[in-house]
């Protein structure tokens, strides 16, 4: 009975970090907002209102939470096993483009169409992740840098494909946006909350998070993946097929990223537009790190992230503040959450003890 209530060490240190970071950020945020000549109280109230003020606002929060969860899970899956997949963004782009194209180009029965689009988007993300994975396996090209480069390439390439292959180089309907035709209704995910762009996608995201959590905690494969990430020589010496695992992880990470792109299309956008996101992949990487690659923590942090996002939009609309302020606050949160408070505390305590001894 007692044991049940004991939080494990990891969760405890995570909570300490979040609390400390939130506190610090609130303080600095207050100053930052006050300096810009706005009332911090009002600003924070608007943020809260924007995040949770109404059903619609909660919908918006959920809508922004979805990609955070998926990208962070994709990142965590990779990082847990020592794969530096920084190419989430590129994989999202290809996933999104694929879903959008399948969504407008084919006619399928409603339920099937969405599923096909989402699976295909995952597959596309996976294929795009295959490139750096193969480069690593064949040429030993560090995936850290290759995925970074593939991100830039993906943004340009999807724009190229959309403009020259899909639109034929001309915007015949008069619109100048570089985007695909709208997806069929049968390819769209049903909305979750009327009046907001929250869709069933959030459920998929949660599902993926839970699956990944269960996978690492309760399966043999999950155990093996963890060993590969923490000590590859050990894993290799005891028969875990390292190259295949590496490929598997890369593909899994790519699949989840691609799926994220697909859900964005089916759930929110409805058509692929060139450069449709900025930094979504990086958000995922940050969240994965803050949450120390723990899927449950990822969901929590993503929700916080989504709330901040939705709240900051509200704050921008209602006050003279720019949402860049919130961006800065978010970054400060990351910085503070990145600190290893336990080590810091131990260090300080050690210093104190020593000084007491000396003095």
């Amino acid at each position, binding site marked *: 009975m007692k044991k049940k209530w004991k939080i494990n060490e990891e969760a405890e240190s995570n909570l300490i970090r979040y609390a400390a970071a939130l506190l610090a950020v609130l303080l600095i945020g207050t100053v930052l907002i006050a300096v810009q000549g706005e009332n911090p109280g009002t600003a924070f109230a608007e943020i809260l209102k924007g995040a949770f003020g109404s059903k619609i606002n909660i919908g918006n929060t959920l809508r922004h939470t979805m990609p955070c969860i998926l990208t962070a899970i994709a990142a965590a899956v990779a990082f847990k096993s020592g794969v530096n997949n920084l190419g989430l963004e590129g994989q999202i782009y290809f996933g999104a483009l694929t879903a959008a194209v399948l969504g407008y180009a084919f006619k399928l029965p409603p339920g099937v169409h969405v599923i096909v689009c989402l699976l295909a988007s995952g597959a596309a993300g996976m294929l795009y992740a295959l490139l750096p994975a193969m480069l690593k396996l064949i040429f030993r090209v560090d995936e850290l840098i290759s995925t970074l480069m593939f991100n830039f390439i993906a943004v340009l390439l999807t724009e190229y494909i959309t403009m020259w292959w899909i639109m034929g180089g001309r915007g015949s309907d008069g*619109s100048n946006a570089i985007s695909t035709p709208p997806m069929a209704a049968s390819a769209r995910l049903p909305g979750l909350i009327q009046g907001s762009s929250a869709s069933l996608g959030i459920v998929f995201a949660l599902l993926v998070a839970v699956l990944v959590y269960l996978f690492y905690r309760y399966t043999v494969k999950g155990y093996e993946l963890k060993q590969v990430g923490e000590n590859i020589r050990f894993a290799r010496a005891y028969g875990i097929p390292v190259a295949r695992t590496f490929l598997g992880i890369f593909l899994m990470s790519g699949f989840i990223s691609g799926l994220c792109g697909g859900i964005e299309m089916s759930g929110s956008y409805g058509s692929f537009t060139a450069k449709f996101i900025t930094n979504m992949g990086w958000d995922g990487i940050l969240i994965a790190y803050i949450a120390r690659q723990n899927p449950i923590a990822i969901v929590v942090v993503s929700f916080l992230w989504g709330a901040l996002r939705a709240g900051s939009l509200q704050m921008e609309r209602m006050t003279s503040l720019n949402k860049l302020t919130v961006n800065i606050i978010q970054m400060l949160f990351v910085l503070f959450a990145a600190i290893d408070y336990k080590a810091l505390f131990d260090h300080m305590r050690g210093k104190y003890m020593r000084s007491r001894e000396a003095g």
Partner: protein
Amino acid sequence: GKKEESAADRGGSPGETYKACFITDGNLGNDFVDLIWKGFQNLEQEGWEIKCIEATDNSEFADDIRSMASEGYQVIMTWEDNVSQAALNLADEIYKNYPNTHMFLLDTYVDHDKPNCTSVSVDPFESSFVAGFVASKMTQTKTIGWIGHTDVLKIRRFRDGYIAGAAYGDPEVEVVYSFTGDYLDPTKGQEAGSAMIANYPVDIIYQSCYLAGPGVIKACSEGGIKCIGVDDWQGDLDPCVFWSAIKPMDVAVTQVALDYKEGKELPKQMDFNIAAGGAVYDERDLQNIPEELQKEVKQLVEDISTGKVDVYKNFEEYRLEY
């Protein structure tokens, strides 16, 4: 029937403060966005309440539009086609919930059937045509250049208008073009300009590169050649900018908003072209060209206005249907 009704409603309450909101995909600080914002500031002078939202991410557009409508903004203007597309997607929903809100899709040429949306364009094709005409008359080397930021449809309107105008002015003149590949980085613009000056005997370059544009202007100034500005009057950036192909969006913005306030019926599309009284150059630039040419330019604008000169003649795909 419905349309007139709501128009009448709007005119009905004189005491009400009007609120206009600008949702932009590009940030303030760029000439064109600033120009639109200038239109809003004019409205502020008229007693309107104004608000600018710099939406940096596509995921925000829909939320922004919904929220501003729910906050009682009667006029929502969107810029960049991505935002406008989001507005069109939401149009029916907004119409149902907030019938008084009207959305103006700035700088788009899109065809649609939403009663509460109006595309407002100032087609750069005409102003680029005139700029091309001027350049073709001013060039000594019979080679003129154009630099855009990326090879996208919107930017090609500038290029092809310029080419059409140059061909109209002097078929002998050759137009070379290139792209900077980045619309925020002026050093890229500078390098693109320098490369063009080194590679070709150009003596006039027309730039349509957003924030990279000042870099091109700098390169022209360093290379000792002339430059044509874009969007707003850019003669203040460097003396080498002798002409600017302006796009008087500010005038358009103010005017459509006031039209709304007066309860005028708003069309689904409107283009502030020369025929509609739009300007394509700034009066201050006239002194930079020979008197003879000044007359020719005025004549050309007149001819375009009356339809005597068809700027889209060899570029049918750019022709606007309204």
